[in-house]
Each structure stands twice: as structure tokens, then as C-alpha cells.
């Protein structure tokens, strides 16, 4: 016969300890009380800024981070308020978000999808970030957007230009303020037609990843619709640094336009190589040979130096815009940092304000309430004119800038001049447009 030492008091003590132990993880996960991931306390709320701090886009990431810090300062009532006074929604009053002081944590995307996901995950799970924003690459944006959808937090993307971000890879928890490849092409094509005529033969060099593919598809479709012929499209490795062997055959192809679907270091090197090979000095088919860079970045145009002179492209925003909102942002940013903001800084600043405004209008940090507040939201006063956050795909629709490399820059920042502000109506497309087909927005995920 066995003998046990069980006592009533012992059973109660063990049960209490075990019960407390089991309950503790639930208690620590405050979200479960509120029904959504990382519900903030009463005093502060944490935002996660996931930007490239190392790697090839580190300078762009640094500018994004400056913009985020400025946005946090303005949300908390510091500085001159930046675009808060010009923003058509006057819900934000400089007292944080819903009375909570805005704090932030940062992560390093390294412009690598796996590293970006890891840093976003750490900010959500360890630092309690309720919203993730930032990035300078479409590959990263698509990866982090997917993670945020699974984790139940809002993702306000930074610089991402691939059609896929709000196309086949769109997610209910993700929102893009930046324009996309289709919009660039729709804005740029009429200007190219006006400048270079309708009888042109284009040769494309395309970065071999999601952004390059959609950029090439968009610009080829838009220029072919005007009568241009696409002679060839050559995919170039993202890691390529010397494009001479890709550029040398261009002149023998019969093409009289080279379209560089490249961004960042790729753009700097391919454009430099093209100019070295004297492409811009040549005459083909009785016309001057021309080069087009569909997506410009002022930060990276610096790397190409005077090679950008006279070359057409598009951009989401430029510091030389003269509307009140842009002037307010440039003044605020320029006074704090000593130089004008980039388009990446602008979109990141605006995304932070838009998120804070949506939470305030919704009266809740619940991601599903934020999604509802942002869907179909019409606003103005943030530098791009009247803008719509379309409910169908969470893409912002606004005017697009067609720019040209400036012939006589007055400073190292004064590299691009605005040729045309293409109205929003001209760059709009149906939600089921074939270039954006294939994905489902799904429903919002509050997590927890």
C-alpha cells in the first residue's frame, strides 16, 4: 500500500503557484485585455521605425529616420508643428496620440527582406510597437507588410514603388502613401511623347526583382500606347555594379531611347556607364539618342552627378514645391537638419501623421478601427494636393511630379526641376487593373 504526503494546504499552495504561473503570460500580454496586439498604456504609445540603417540605402534610411523624429516631435507638441497646421484634418493637436506621448523604437532593415522582418518582429514582440513604418525597397515592404498582417499591427510603408505592394501583395493592415510604377509611367509617358515624339524605339535595362519588373511593364505599356516600340528588355542582376556589357549592345539594337528601370546604386552606375559610352551624344534613326529614368531619387541623383542633366523621370514629391504644406515641411526639416528633405523623408513623415490622425479620428488604437478610418480617407495639406487613400487597395491617389535633371544646379540639393505636375485623374486606374491583379486585400487583423 502506497503512502503519500499530500496535505490540503500543500495542494492549495501548489495550485496557487501553478495558477499564477499559467496566468502570468496572459497578464504580461496586455493586448489580450484590449483585443488587439500591443495596446498602449495610458501614458505613451510606441511606434516602430524600420529603416535601412546599414547597407546600400543607409543614407535614404537616415533621411527617413530624421523625418520620423521630426514627426514625433510635432505630434508631441514640439517644434513649429510642421504640416500639422496645413493638414486638412485638424484632429491632431500636438498632445501625442489620443493623449499618449509618442515614443519610438528603431530597427535596421539592411534592405534585406529577412533582416527587415526580423527587426519588425523584434519591435512588435519585444518593444511593443503598435505600428511599423519605413523601408526603402519594395522587396522589404512586401515582406514586412505580410508580417504586420500576421502580427496584427498596422504597416505604413515608406519608399516602395512596385505595383505589387498594393497589387498582388496588398494586405488589409498595410497602407502606401508613395506612388507606384504604374503612376510613374502614366505621368511620364505623355511628357516623353511631347518631348521626343511618338516614333521612338526603346531599349530597357531592368533590375531583376519585383520593382524592376513592374516598373518595366508599366513604362513599356504606357510608351507603347503612345506609339513607341519596345526593342528589347534586358534583366540585369540587382548586384551588378558595371553595366558596360549591357549598355554596349544598345547602339546596335536600332533603339533611340534607353530606359533605365534601375534605382539607387544600379541607377547611378548604369546611367554613368551609359554617358561614358557616349550614348547621349549619338544620333540614331535621325534622332538624338535619349535616356529615361522612370523613378528618380534626389539623394541618389547626387551620385550620378552631372550625368542626370536633362534626363526625365518622376518623383513622389520634391522640396521645391511651393504649396503651403511643402513649404512648411521644408522649413521645419531644413531648420532642424540644415538641408532639404528627400521624397523618402516626406512620405515617411506624412505616413506617421496619417496614422496618428486615423487613430485620433477613430478614437482607438485598434488596427481594425485605424483601417476603417484610413479607408476612403480624402485629405489635403500634406504636400501632394488633394489625396485619396483608396479603400480597395490601400493605395494613395494624388498628383505625380514629372522631373528633369537640372542643367544649372545652384547647390548639391538642387538637382531636379519639376517639369509637370500630372493631375491625379491621369494616373488613376481600376482596382482590378491587370497590373495589380492576383492578390486579395483580405480583412484586417487586430492580432491578440
Amino acid at each position, binding site marked *: 500500500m502506497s503512502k503519500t504526503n499530500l496535505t490540503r494546504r500543500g495542494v492549495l499552495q501548489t495550485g496557487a503557484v501553478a495558477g499564477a504561473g499559467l496566468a502570468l503570460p496572459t497578464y504580461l500580454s496586455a493586448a489580450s485585455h484590449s483585443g488587439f496586439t500591443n495596446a498602449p498604456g495610458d501614458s505613451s504609445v510606441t511606434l516602430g521605425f524600420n529603416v535601412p540603417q546599414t547597407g*546600400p540605402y543607409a543614407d535614404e534610411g537616415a533621411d527617413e529616420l530624421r523625418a520620423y523624429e521630426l514627426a514625433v516631435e510635432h505630434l508631441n507638441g514640439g517644434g513649429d508643428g510642421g504640416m500639422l497646421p496645413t493638414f486638412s484634418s485638424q484632429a491632431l493637436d500636438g498632445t501625442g496620440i489620443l493623449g499618449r506621448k509618442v515614443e519610438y523604437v528603431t530597427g535596421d532593415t539592411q534592405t534585406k527582406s529577412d533582416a527587415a522582418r526580423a527587426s519588425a518582429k523584434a519591435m512588435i514582440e519585444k518593444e511593443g510597437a503598435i505600428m511599423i513604418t519605413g523601408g526603402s525597397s519594395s522587396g522589404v515592404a512586401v515582406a514586412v507588410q505580410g508580417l504586420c498582417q500576421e502580427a496584427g499591427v498596422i504597416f505604413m510603408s515608406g519608399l516602395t514603388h512596385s505595383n505589387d505592394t498594393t497589387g498582388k501583395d496588398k494586405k488589409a493592415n498595410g497602407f502606401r502613401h508613395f506612388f507606384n510604377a504604374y503612376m510613374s509611367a502614366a505621368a511620364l509617358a505623355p511628357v516623353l511623347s511631347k518631348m521626343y515624339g511618338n516614333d521612338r524605339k526603346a531599349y530597357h535595362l531592368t533590375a531583376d526583382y519585383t520593382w524592376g519588373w513592374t516598373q518595366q511593364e508599366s513604362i513599356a505599356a504606357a510608351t507603347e500606347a503612345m506609339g513607341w516600340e519596345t526593342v528589347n528588355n534586358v534583366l540585369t542582376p540587382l548586384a551588378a555594379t558595371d553595366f558596360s556589357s549591357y549598355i554596349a549592345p544598345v547602339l546596335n539594337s536600332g533603339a533611340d531611347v534607353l530606359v533605365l528601370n534601375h534605382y539607387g546604386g544600379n541607377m547611378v552606375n548604369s546611367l554613368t556607364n551609359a554617358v*561614358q559610352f557616349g550614348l547621349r551624344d*549619338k544620333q540614331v534613326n535621325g534622332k538624338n539618342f535619349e535616356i529615361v529614368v522612370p523613378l528618380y531619387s534626389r539623394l541618389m541623383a547626387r551620385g550620378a552627378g552631372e550625368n542626370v542633366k536633362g534626363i526625365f523621370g518622376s518623383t513622389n514629391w520634391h522640396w521645391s514645391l511651393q504649396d503651403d504644406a511643402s513649404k512648411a515641411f521644408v522649413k521645419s526639416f531644413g531648420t532642424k537638419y540644415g538641408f532639404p528633405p528627400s521624397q523618402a523623408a516626406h512620405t515617411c513623415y506624412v505616413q506617421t501623421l496619417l496614422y496618428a490622425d486615423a487613430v485620433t479620428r477613430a478614437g482607438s488604437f485598434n488596427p481594425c478601427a485605424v483601417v476603417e478610418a484610413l479607408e476612403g480617407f480624402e485629405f489635403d495639406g500634406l504636400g501632394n494636393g488633394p489625396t485619396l487613400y483608396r479603400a480597395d487597395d490601400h493605395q494613395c491617389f494624388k498628383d505625380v511630379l514629372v522631373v528633369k535633371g537640372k542643367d544649372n544646379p545652384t547647390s548639391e540639393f538642387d538637382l531636379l526641376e519639376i517639369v509637370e505636375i500630372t493631375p491625379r485623374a491621369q494616373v488613376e486606374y481600376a482596382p482590378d487593373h491587370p497590373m495589380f491583379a492576383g492578390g486579395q486585400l483580405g480583412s484586417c487583423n487586430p492580432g491578440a
Partner: protein
Amino acid sequence: MDAIILQILNGLDKGSAYALIALGLTLIFGTLGVVNFAHGALFMIGAFCAVTVQRILNLSYETIDPSQTDFLGNPLVVKTPYVHSWFGPETGASIIEWSVPIAIIFAIPIMIAIGFIMERGLIKHFYKRPHADQILVTFGLAIVLQELIKYFYGANPIQTGAPDVFRGSFDFGVLLGFDPNVIIYPYWRLVYFAFAAVIIGAVFAFLQFTTFGMVVRAGMADRETVGLLGINIDKKFTIMFGLAAAVAGLAGVMYAPINSPNYHMGMDFLVLSFVVVVVGGMGSLPGAVLAGFLLGILESFASMNEIKSILPGIDQIIIYLVAIIILLTRPRGLMGRKGVMED
């Protein structure tokens, strides 16, 4: 035919860079027995010597132009380089324009000094350690150097132009009887190829026709015996490290106008240069040069549309594919000799 000539020309400049880096790597491996993964960083530092000289020559004084405004609406601060005021605007502009060739003069002592410091300060402590340790420490050093460059110069590429006289391109096609605009080649790339040929020739002449070179070659063949003869072979090898660093640095300086320097450019060349060394034959200087040009030209051919349409992605793997084939058929590489680096 024109496409073949064009790709051979394209391969020459890339091959020149591979050959110069691989030459330095082979010198270091051959003399010191060290696998130097920081050698690509030396190439990158060379390119940034050109950037630095360009910045020094562009040092400016500021004047206020009240007739113009800056982006904040304040009176515009106009920067005028000191060289413009010292030598006049035209001569000053010419001096700035020639910043890359001028950088060569500064790069030689700087790179030799960096080579000495690297060898005496760090690498000599790893001579008797396994190759794995040497690879780890030199790879770590490469990362430190590139992060330092990124800290001071940023992550974006920096435009570093060639002198105006070398801008534009040369129509080789007309020279060879083809139509105009069929085979064109930038002047600066021709300069780069010629420069690489001179440097390679100078290194070979130095090793072949000087007493110092003879001792180094003897040391590469049998270090112990040379030491027993009372020659301080370590000192000679330190000088060779400095020389190898200078060769990599000069390759970088002259490469700056071809592709805008960025902090990562050393890593881009490093791995391929190691493949070049192995294909050429470990310890073989002529092998390194031959393999450098061979692989540069093959890489260029693999980028041709006609070849990529048959074998997509071949441009990414061609060098490694050729390396596998050569090592399977000639395990010591193209010009490696029996008994060298095999203990």
C-alpha cells in the same frame, strides 16, 4: 563579329581590375602565406583616395549672394573653391577636373603606409595561425574598413569624374572598317587598361630585375633557406605587403571614374578576385594576371543577350562555372606549379 570585339573590349577593363587585385593577393599569399580578405577593402580605399583628393581640391570659402536665396529663403551662400581664387577660375577648374590622376600621387604613399600598418599591426600576429583564422581576421578588418568609409562618406555612390579630355568614347568600329557607332569604347576605360598594363609590367620588372625582387622570389620558393642565408625575409615581405596594397589602391583610384565609388565596392571585387587567384594557380603571378583578363572577358561575353537568351542567368555564374571546369581539369589552376602552396 562586332559584338565579339565589343565584349572583348568590355572585358578588358573589368579584367584589368581583377588582374590588379589578384596580383596583390597572390603577392601576399605567395610571400606571407596569408589569405588576405581585406584586399578588396584596399581597392575601395584607393577609390576613396580619389574621392578625398576631389573633396580637398573642392574646399571652398563662402560668400553671401543677397540676390539669390537658398531653399529656406535665406540669402544664398555661394561656395567658391580656393583653387579657383588661387589659380583663376579656368586653371582652378582644370585642377579639380584632374583630381583622379592627381590622386595617384597621394595614393601611393598612403596605400603603402596602410599596408605597413595592416601587416605590422595585425596580420603578422596571424602568420602561424591556421588559414581559417587569417580569413576571419582579415574579413573582419574589411568590414571595419568599409564601415569606417561609410561613416565618413555615406552609403551613396560618389561621382568622381575623369578629366574632360578622357570623357566620351572612341569609335573603334570605324578604325576596323565597321559602320560608325557599332563598336564604341569609353576613353577612360582604355586609359585604365593601359594603366593596368603598365602597373603589371612594373611589378614583374621589379620582381624580375632587382636584387630585392630576386630575394622575394627566392623567399616565395623557400622561405627557410633564404632566412638561413642571413637575409631578413620578414622585412622584405612587409615591404611586399605595402607594394601589394599600393597596387590594389592604384587600381581603385583609377577605377573611380568608371563606377562611382561606394563603401561596398571592395566586397564586390573581392570574391571574384579570389576565384581569379585560384584559377590562375595559387602563388603564380602570371597566372593571376592571365586569369583576371580571361574571366573578365568571359563575364562580359556571358552578359550578351544572345547567350543569356539560351542560358538565362549565365552572367551570374560563368566565372564560378569556368573555375570548376579549370580546377577539375587542372587542379593547380592555369599556371600553378607542382609543390607550390601544397604543403
